[in-house]
């Protein structure tokens, strides 16, 4: 696995650099927003900084989710697929290195969020603590990837990306319809919404919501593992869909 992981890092170094740059650039671009804002009270507002931090974290995971297909695509060659299956590593090692690379990227985003939040707090004098939110997003990303990756492996990245895009479009459409016509009173006003987030960060959750969160994080990890097992099974079937 060590060797395959090294191969992944070398093979995808350009993509990793682009993703890293995108994450850092977006974070910095959003992070300096409070400084250039006309509203004087915003620049030292902890709630506002927190909102920016959370947005940055969501965007970083979203970038990872959008680009992770490239890690799979990089090895879409029939010759490589049959070769790696014949080695002692087998298809399992190949899939394992891909899944592990995605977790590594997830960890990098989590660490970056921590570092960036610290830097932002120093400059803005605020005291935010969104690392637990970022860790929760870490599991959310694993959960979404668990459904995304087996499709890419079974039907090739072309087919997988189609499923990926359709799913995203459906989600966006459902969210759009809900925000246009649905009941938004559950979110309350902006202040109430942030109050809820602050309560969540301070651990003031109802019994039911904390149970759902607890089950969700472990279910995400479990789904990711099952997805890996499923992908191992699908690997050779997906070779039929490779162009070369």
């Amino acid at each position, binding site marked *: *696995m*060590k060797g395959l992981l090294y191969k992944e890092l070398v093979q995808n170094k350009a993509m990793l650099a682009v993703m890293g740059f995108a994450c850092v650039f977006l974070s910095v671009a959003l992070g300096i927003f409070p400084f250039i804002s006309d509203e004087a009270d915003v620049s030292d507002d902890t709630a506002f900084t927190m909102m920016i931090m959370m947005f940055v974290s969501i965007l970083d995971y979203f970038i990872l989710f959008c680009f992770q297909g490239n890690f799979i695509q990089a090895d879409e060659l029939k010759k490589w697929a049959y070769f790696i299956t014949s080695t002692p590593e087998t298809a399992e090692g190949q899939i394992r290195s891909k899944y592990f690379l995605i977790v590594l990227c*997830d*960890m990098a985003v*989590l*660490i970056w969020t*921590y570092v960036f*939040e*610290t*830097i932002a*707090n*120093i400059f803005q*004098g*605020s*005291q935010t603590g969104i*690392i*637990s939110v970022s*860790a*929760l997003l*870490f*599991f959310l990303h694993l959960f979404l990837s668990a459904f995304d990756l087996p499709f890419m492996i079974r039907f090739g990245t072309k087919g997988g990306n189609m499923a990926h895009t359709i799913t995203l479009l459906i989600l966006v459409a459902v969210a759009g319809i809900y925000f246009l016509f649905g009941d938004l009173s559950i979110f309350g006003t902006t202040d109430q919404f942030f109050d809820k987030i602050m309560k969540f960060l301070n*651990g003031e959750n109802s*019994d*039911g*919501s*904390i*149970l*759902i*969160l*607890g*089950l969700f*994080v*472990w279910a995400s*990890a479990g789904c990711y593992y099952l997805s890996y097992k499923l992908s191992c099974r699908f690997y050779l079937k997906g070779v039929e869909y490779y162009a070369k």
Partner: protein
Amino acid sequence: MQNKKLEWKRVIIFLILSYLIAYIPEFILGNQMGNIENWTDPKLSVLVLFITYSPALAVVLTRYITKEGWKDSYLHLNDKGNLKYYLLSVFYLTITGIGFGMIMNLMTGKSILQGFSLIRFIGTYLYVTALSVPLGFVTFGEELGWRGYLYPKLEKLIGTPLTIIIGGIVWGLWHAPLTVKGHNFGTDYIGFPYTGMLLMSIYCIATGAFLMWLVKKTNSVWTSSIAHSVNNNAISAIGFTIASEIQEDEITQMQSALVMMMFQFIICMIFMIFLIKINKNQNLPAES
């Protein structure tokens, strides 16, 4: 002989560096800001990360200075066939949290599970343990230094039981500037701050034994990083879910820390026996 001398030299360089890198910012902060409850400046989170990574930094510098290279770095995951140890690193120390909560209830005159909500307990338990896994990157710095470098070296030089004791004391004293400023125990207790430093060392001896056992079993510091993260992030959260009705003025920080440490000491010392057993088994062929 030459090898032993070199190993001692490496241990000493590592210790000097890891203490210096951690102590200097801690002393400056302590002088400027007073007790730990005043350490609210956001700049501190950079320093905290820097301090927690000081043993890792010391490993890098020691390996570079002594031209040691990166052999036996314990950096590999080695997860294949070691899933049970990874699971143990996530769940084992949570026993402390459960015991701590129950004893705290009894100490304050409540029934053992007074105010206990099973749904809240399960939710909190699952949530904090899961989140502690990715947050292991915070404790990784310490683990790379202590369990990934100091403990294996000491074990070769002075044997397993002494490594657990001396390693634990070294690890405990490394926390001393924080203990002096009220970390873990507060400042309101008999023999402050020396009692706190002594207790911290005892706690580190016991916890260190478990973490060392994990590293020995998996040859990876990742398991101990996860267990350390669970220790820092999950235990008290789990404990206070059980002891949810305890008010702040009912129990002092020292009392609650003592209960937690007592429990941790009991559940971790078992591993000292395991470690000595492993060592004996490993030495058998050489002795015969």
